[in-house]
């Protein structure tokens, strides 16, 4: 597949851009923060996003989605990154839809996918148990109980955990704490008895939660995929999430860069436009080249997911590593080149740096994924 967008994809991107600039500009994130909107996003706007087709982009037509695929999902995320739109897109429309679409039984798909595509049902992926991403570290236990399972343990930093109706939880059904074998994914309703959800305020003003499961009883139908063999599925689904998150970081990095270049063309000091100073020009030009690399890596990852969903491990690691490090660099440079105004809460640029930091951390930061590439290359 050529590494360029086709016409349909360009149209989709333009439509998403128009909608998001109108309905969810950065002022919406600011409002959500200032008014402490429950769940971390506006349900009304999410419903409108669903009407735009965002929520069903990975859900097949059979279940009420469009099935446009991962390149399309990445384009939407990219535009969401540009306006820092708060929404459960990643958790529900990407991770939830990918997990159920890939591994769900007909019954599970029929029960959940239409709701995801319609934006009424929100899912969240409960994976991590410590402060750094480590998906194979699973101590949350699932023990056989009757014809189902009993789940006990804790998860942390669950994106959109506070708004979710359905949790997708990785649990240990066999093996030792760090084994890939013996991990099983479960579908757990957020309102099940024994589930406690505590939302944590974070620097990016998005919704994360610490979740404990205390002897939560689920029946056999709650297993997603195969018992004990859930890790491969989990990784594939996370790779989709990582790639789409990389696309979001591409968008936010480019937007903060564009804002900065605009500022360089207007702000005057020493009687000159500051954009005439070569010290700043070169930093901006360097960032431009880095952003070009991000765009290439992200597009390749999204295309690979569409062509060979389970074979995207290495390229997703590349996209997440490159986008994470460049998004952090671009947003830090943006603040520096704005000077004092960049440090004010009133200016939007700070929101970009905060989101870059959190998005890099989520599902493995740039170092984590560079390390993966090293491993895959045999060192």
């Amino acid at each position: 597949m050529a590494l360029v967008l086709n016409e349909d994809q360009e149209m989709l991107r333009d439509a998403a851009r128009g909608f998001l600039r109108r309905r969810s500009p950065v002022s919406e994130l600011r409002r959500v923060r200032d008014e402490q909107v429950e769940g971390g996003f506006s349900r009304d706007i999410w419903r409108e996003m669903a009407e735009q087709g965002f929520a069903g982009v990975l859900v097949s037509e059979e279940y009420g989605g469009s099935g446009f695929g991962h390149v399309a999902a990445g384009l939407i995320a990219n535009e969401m990154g540009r306006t820092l739109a708060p929404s459960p897109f990643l958790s529900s429309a990407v991770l939830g839809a990918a997990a159920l679409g890939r591994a769900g039984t007909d019954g599970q798909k029929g029960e959940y996918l239409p709701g995801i595509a319609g934006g009424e049902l929100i899912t969240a992926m409960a994976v991590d148990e410590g402060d750094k991403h480590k998906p194979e570290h699973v101590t949350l236990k699932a023990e056989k109980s009757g014809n189902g399972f009993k789940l006990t343990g804790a998860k942390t930093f669950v994106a959109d955990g506070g708004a979710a109706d359905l949790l997708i939880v990785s649990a240990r059904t066999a093996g030792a704490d760090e084994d890939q074998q013996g991990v099983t994914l479960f579908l757990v309703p957020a309102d099940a008895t024994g589930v406690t959800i505590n939302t944590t305020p974070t620097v990016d003003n998005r919704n994360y939660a610490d979740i404990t499961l205390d002897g939560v009883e689920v029946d056999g139908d709650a297993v997603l995929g195969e018992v004990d063999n859930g890790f491969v599925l989990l990784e594939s689904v996370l790779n989709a999430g990582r790639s789409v998150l990389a696309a979001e970081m591409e968008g936010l990095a480019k937007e903060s860069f564009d804002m900065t270049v605009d500022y360089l063309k207007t702000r005057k000091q020493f009687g000159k436009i500051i954009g005439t100073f070569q010290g700043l020009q070169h930093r901006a030009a360097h960032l431009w080249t880095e952003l070009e690399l991000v765009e290439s890596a992200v597009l390749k990852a999204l295309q690979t997911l569409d062509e060979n969903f389970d074979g995207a491990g290495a390229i997703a690691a590349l996209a997440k590593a490159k986008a994470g490090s460049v998004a952090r660099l671009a947003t830090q440079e943006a603040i520096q080149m704005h000077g004092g105004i960049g440090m004010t809460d009133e200016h939007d640029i700070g929101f970009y740096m905060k989101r870059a930091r959190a998005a890099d951390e989520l599902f493995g930061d740039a170092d984590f994924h560079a390390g993966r590439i090293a491993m895959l290359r045999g060192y």
Partner: protein
Amino acid sequence: MPDLEKFREEAREWLEANCPESIRKPVSGEDDIVWGGRNWVFKSDDQKIWLDRMAERGWTVPEWPKEYGGGGLSKEEAKVLKQEMARIKAPPPVNSFGIWMLGPALLKFGSEEQKREHLPPICRGEIRWAQGYSEPGAGSDLAALQTRADDKGDHYIVNGQKVWTSYADECDKIFCLVRTDPSAPKHEGISFLLIDMDQPGVTTKPIRLISGKSPFCETFFDDATAPKENLVGELNKGWTIAKYLLTHERAMIGGMDSSQVLGRSPGEIAADTVGRNSEGELADSFLRSDIARSDVDGWAFMLTMERYRDKSKAGEGVGAASSGLKYYGTELNKRRYELSMSASGFNALKIGDGIDSEEGEMARRWLRTKANSIEGGTSEVQLNIISKRILELPDA
């Protein structure tokens, strides 16, 4: 695309039958590179056989038109040919500034006679060209050049000095930027002139590089002559050609794939020198993370070259973005060689005429990479171009 597959089959068969066994190996040093020209001494009979056979097919320069000695292949076919050559480790039969720089400029700006005269000998590796751009007082500020060509009716008389002229002492001809109107603003009085180096008025003096080699020279013109028909394009419009040619040069320098030439990647080398921990990771975790970050950037850079190729196939010009490739690719290459040197340790420091090992070669190449971000326009100059042409930041 069945036609393309048919072409692949034909190419594969022909290469199998015609590429001599002895030269099917990765390019490992300067000796494996054929530059051609009247002064060229082939390192083996097979090198010459390979060049002659490929030239006869037009495959030394696969994408140039057939009537000028090229292969007339489409971009897709040329890519297939490259893949098939790589499959059997067949090296390029000839490399040259004629192929990379002058040829593309002549195809765009040259007259029909100039194309017929100059392109076929380039394809056959018979004439080797030098690039006469830089002067002692005109490096990054190339348009400040002073070498002048005076109109003498049917010919020009050239006086002045060029510097850093790669391989000038081995070349047959030189394409030069010369001042033809000293009174015009500096970009407007420059012309693009082809000069025969085999004449008393042209002398060269080799300059020794930090690698110990002398691959470039000072080039002096003392009343050298060039016939009028050697003016390419219009008089005083040479700057346009110069810039066009530089875009090609930059894309070429930026796109040099070091990983291929090097043979072994820094990660592989380090596995031997520092060893591994129980997890199979390099025992030196600082080196490991530096190499991993450079691999991340290297892969993303390769994808960017692929994306630009696809963009230009789809009809979108890449333009000033070639400065981005030049800048990033050369800085990356320097980084990789720094890492290879660190990974190799003491072994990489060995140098000297007697040592033909990978290690002796490594030091020389490491030294050579430092020029990548200088030649063809420095990194700083590329960043200036990106600032102005792409970001549209104002001039000081």
